[in-house]
């Protein structure tokens, strides 16, 4: 089924599915993964220039130049993607069509508190989440600001002379440190947080397929299921 169709017109074949991500969003994620991965593997050897493993990889000055060019090309790709993403958000906001689903709200605090109680065995039930749960919002916003930081600091250390024409010189060493450190922080975060939640806790491939099954909707996004279908997602509650 096409990702562009409205959510509640999901066609049930053997199993009813719900559109979670539209084709554009799936493409955005694919570009994000690819460019970030290229940036990471071309960035780490540059960060660790003093280490012998890096010097083994970058065994000639030409290779250093090459890896920098690959890094810059991937950076441009990611920057274009970020501009598209922000541009689209601004466009939607201007037309009052922006979904508030991804923005943090008080419900996330309540859900997090609820989840914490659950994790400490103080409650038997998990929170019933909306379209995006607070874990997913943390992922999005952590990476949103992480990538913003990477992008800004990256362009500053790519064009330090140009940027210091109007910015104070201190931003250059600060950007160098931020770029180098934030990259590792973001990588650690993705491995711990994102990989656990989408690969280990359960295999959530909706960002690639664009769809969630009815069971997944009920189990992990109960409030969204109720909002979309008007039916209670209580079947799971009975199981517990």
């Amino acid at each position: 089924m096409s990702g562009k169709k409205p959510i509640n017109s999901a066609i049930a074949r053997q199993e009813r599915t719900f559109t979670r991500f539209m084709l554009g969003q799936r493409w955005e994620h694919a570009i994000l993964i690819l460019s970030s991965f290229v940036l990471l593997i071309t960035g780490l050897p540059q960060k660790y220039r003093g280490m012998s493993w890096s010097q083994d990889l970058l065994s000639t000055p030409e290779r250093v130049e090459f890896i920098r060019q690959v890094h810059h090309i991937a950076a441009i790709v990611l920057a274009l993607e970020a501009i598209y993403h922000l541009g689209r958000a601004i466009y939607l906001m201007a037309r009052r069509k922006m979904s508030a689903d991804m923005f943090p709200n008080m419900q996330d605090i309540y859900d997090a508190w609820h989840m914490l109680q659950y994790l400490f065995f103080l409650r038997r039930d998990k929170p019933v989440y909306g379209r995006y749960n607070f874990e997913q919002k943390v992922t999005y916003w952590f990476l949103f600001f992480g990538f913003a930081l990477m992008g800004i600091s990256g362009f500053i250390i790519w064009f330090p002379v140009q940027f210091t024409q109007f910015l104070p010189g201190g931003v250059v060493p600060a950007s160098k440190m931020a770029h180098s450190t934030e990259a590792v922080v973001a990588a650690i975060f993705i491995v711990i947080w994102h990989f656990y939640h989408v690969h280990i806790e359960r295999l959530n491939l909706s960002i690639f397929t664009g769809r969630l099954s009815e069971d997944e909707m009920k189990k992990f996004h109960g409030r969204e299921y109720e909002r979309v279908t008007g039916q209670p997602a209580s079947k799971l509650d009975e199981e517990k």
Partner: protein
Amino acid sequence: MTTRNLYRQAPWLVITGVIVLLASLFVTFPAVAKPPMQQTEQYCLTCHGDSTLSMTLKSGETLSLYVSQDQLDHSVHSNKGIECEACHNDISTYPHPELKYETKRELSLNYYKTCEKCHSDNYAKTQDSMHAQVASEGNTESPVCTDCHGHHDTRKPNEPRTLVSETCSKCHVEIVDAYKQSVHGAALIADGNPDVPVCTDCHGVHNIQDPRTVQFRMDSPELCAGCHADKKLMDKYGLSSDVYSIYKRSWHGVDISVYKARWGAVWHDSAVCTDCHGVHDMKKASDPTSKVNPKNLLSTCQKCHPTAGPNWTDAWTGHNEISLARTPTLFYVDKFYTSFTPFILWICIIYVLLQIIHSIVDRVRSTLS
């Protein structure tokens, strides 16, 4: 009777004799404190002490044959009893064999080889030097032993230490002039400072290498670090001994160390100490004529970063650790990544661990029930 008496006294005589002999073993004569006697010097000087004695070489040059007593008195050799013929080994008596050299230079270039007899190590080192290389390319002016050390008045080459730069300035006039203006040269000349480097401390003594090579450039930061990373020495002058370790972590320093480690033969322009501080004319940063004085820093940066604007110099953190006063932006970024970010990451880790523990407990429970 007398013989009998003698026989009686014989044991005593023998004992006394033995004691005297044994005692004599412990008697040593004091070492000769006076200079050893010169056998031939005075003999040679009967002719060569005449200040007008000279001869004309085939080239038309006049070669003075005068050797003054004063020169010899200052020579390290004469005072050690080393004779004229130790060096002039083709001359043993009068009349002398005919001098076969056509020019004075030719004479020097042949006579200096006798230095090798005693100073074979240093002689061998000079054969690897820049000077020897230039000589082998046909430059007869390239210095040999005697050009630096003198011949009849060979003195200790570094007493006083200023003598070293004076010796080099015989040829390298402009460089020594620049050195004399530097913080090192000025301290040497004004105070006879024993810590500042003289020419030979950086360039080596006998195996002086070409300082314009890639290798010399790559090694030069460590050369400076020899003193400038020495805490005891730097404390004496109120200087930081961290300049080198901080440089090594900087963009320039990392770049240079990679090139040095892997591509030692490739010229690389990333800055080494001398690119910013000057080669022979390095001065205190507070000196208004210093290349690294705040007033001149931008033009120094612009040598490599020609389009850099006035803010650019602040991008250089100097040889300083991160501090709020000097590099506030960097200070806050550092604080952010050393306190806030690890805190957030730990929360994430703990949260995920709690989830893992909970799911394990759930599985165990569902298996047991």
